[in-house]
């Protein structure tokens, strides 16, 4: 039995809903969430969704406390994992602060696994929990470990790191994995429609070259 606890720091609730949908029926997990009124900050696995506001000292302290208690801290969803759209979008909405004050949670604490996706599909949660429970480090869970080390990840990075370095093999995995249609193929190579990119990072972890480099760079 894994004791899993969840807190949302101020995301759009998409991630919270995804988690609730998956975790309330999850096998081998004892799930508590602030959303179900059961949050107590204790848990072997702490799932954090939403970005951290760097002006909010109370939240920052809380996050640090959670880190101290947690055996594993998981950044769930693009906002918590890599900043996602919250950090990026501009609309002059009230209330301020500016979006740049929102950062991925690894700006404040060490993260064990970071799962991109806006939100990650509920279907990936049970297999992820199973992988944590049986402790098998094989198979693609290592990618999430590597993402925990980076502070940004998006279509922009994919273009920079893979396409412009000429190590793209034109497989189309990124195009297939982009939820907004921001990636498309131009003359056989991916190109980014910048206005459409919500900086979720899904394309990056799905690219066979990029994920390989991520692991090689960050998991020594």
């Amino acid at each position, binding site marked *: 039995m894994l004791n899993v606890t969840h807190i949302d720091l101020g995301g759009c609730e998409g991630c919270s809903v995804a988690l609730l949908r998956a975790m309330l029926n999850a096998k081998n997990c004892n799930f508590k969430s602030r959303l179900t009124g059961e949050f107590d900050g204790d848990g072997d696995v702490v799932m954090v969704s939403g970005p951290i506001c760097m002006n909010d000292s109370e939240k920052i302290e809380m996050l640090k406390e959670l880190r101290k208690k947690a055996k594993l801290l998981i950044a769930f969803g693009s906002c918590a994992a890599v900043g996602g759209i919250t950090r990026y979008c501009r609309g002059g909405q009230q209330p301020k602060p500016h979006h740049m004050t929102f950062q991925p949670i690894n700006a404040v604490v060490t993260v064990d696994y970071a*799962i*991109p*996706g806006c939100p*990650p*599909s509920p*279907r*990936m949660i049970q*297999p*992820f929990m199973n992988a944590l429970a049986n402790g098998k*480090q*094989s*198979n*693609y*869970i*290592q*990618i999430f470990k590597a993402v925990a080390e980076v502070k940004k990840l998006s279509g922009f990075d994919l273009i920079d790191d*893979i396409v412009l*370095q*000429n*190590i*793209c*093999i*034109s*497989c*189309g*995995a990124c*195009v*297939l*994995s982009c*939820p907004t249609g921001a990636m498309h*193929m131009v003359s*056989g190579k991916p190109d980014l429609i910048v206005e459409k990119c919500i900086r979720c990072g*899904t394309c990056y*972890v*799905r690219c*066979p*070259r990029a*994920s*390989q*480099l991520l*692991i*090689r*760079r960050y*998991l*020594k």
Partner: protein
Amino acid sequence: MSKSIPTAYKEVFKMMPSWYLEKPLGDYVAIYMGKAGRKIAAEGAAGGGAITSFLCYLLDNGIIDGVVAARKSKGLEGEIVVARTREDIIKSAGSRWQVLPFTLKLKETIENESLRSMAIVGLPCQINFLRQMKTFPLLETDFSNKISMLISLFCFGTFAQESILSYVREKYGIEPSSIEEIKISQKALKFIGNKEVEIKFDEITKYTQVGCLLCPDYTGVASDISAGTIEDKTFIIVRNNEANEMLKDANKKGYIEIENVNETEIERVERKATEKIKRASRYIAQLL
């Protein structure tokens, strides 16, 4: 094996921890040499080989309702084909499963064809991506539950299209736009266009895509079944018991003929796989 592949190998496995240290062919439960069985050979699909026949078996027995694979459309360009009947499969068998990246149109194709349970034949990089998707479906639209079997073809690299096309134009005077077909055999590519020219692989390996030089996976370790052609037979690596049972049943029912493989053959493929791992390790060190 382990003594002959020193640090280079370990380096690459640090980069791909999901893969299996000191197992250049990945994890497997059985290895066979296979070819099309009586049942299929009688229907004139001799060119297709063991995998084509095995796919027919999967369809006939209702294990899958379609096969998705890439095929050459024109020149070096590929397209996705969905084969839904054994006639389709046998028909496309002669054209060989094409070595070209193709994941791009997959989602559309699967939706349009309303497939429920399919086998996908692809290259190691594609199979790796599809396995990742199947393991952790990050998107609501990921169609992981529709994939019943992933079959990987051995791959040592694919060509950078533009470079190779301009090379054959410069050197042999073949106009890229005139190319009707490119035939792939084990040792050469045959271009058929305004001229017909056969070019040995050795001559053109330098036009391998740079991305492929970083790729350490020769057989497709994330597959259910991996297959590569050796002479006129198919070297088959089976990675789980379920797939193994199916192969055995297909053998029993006359779709394929499989026999055990001797150590020397296995070592030959291992050497090739190790060579690719070392190459990847070299190039990745340059990049980082």
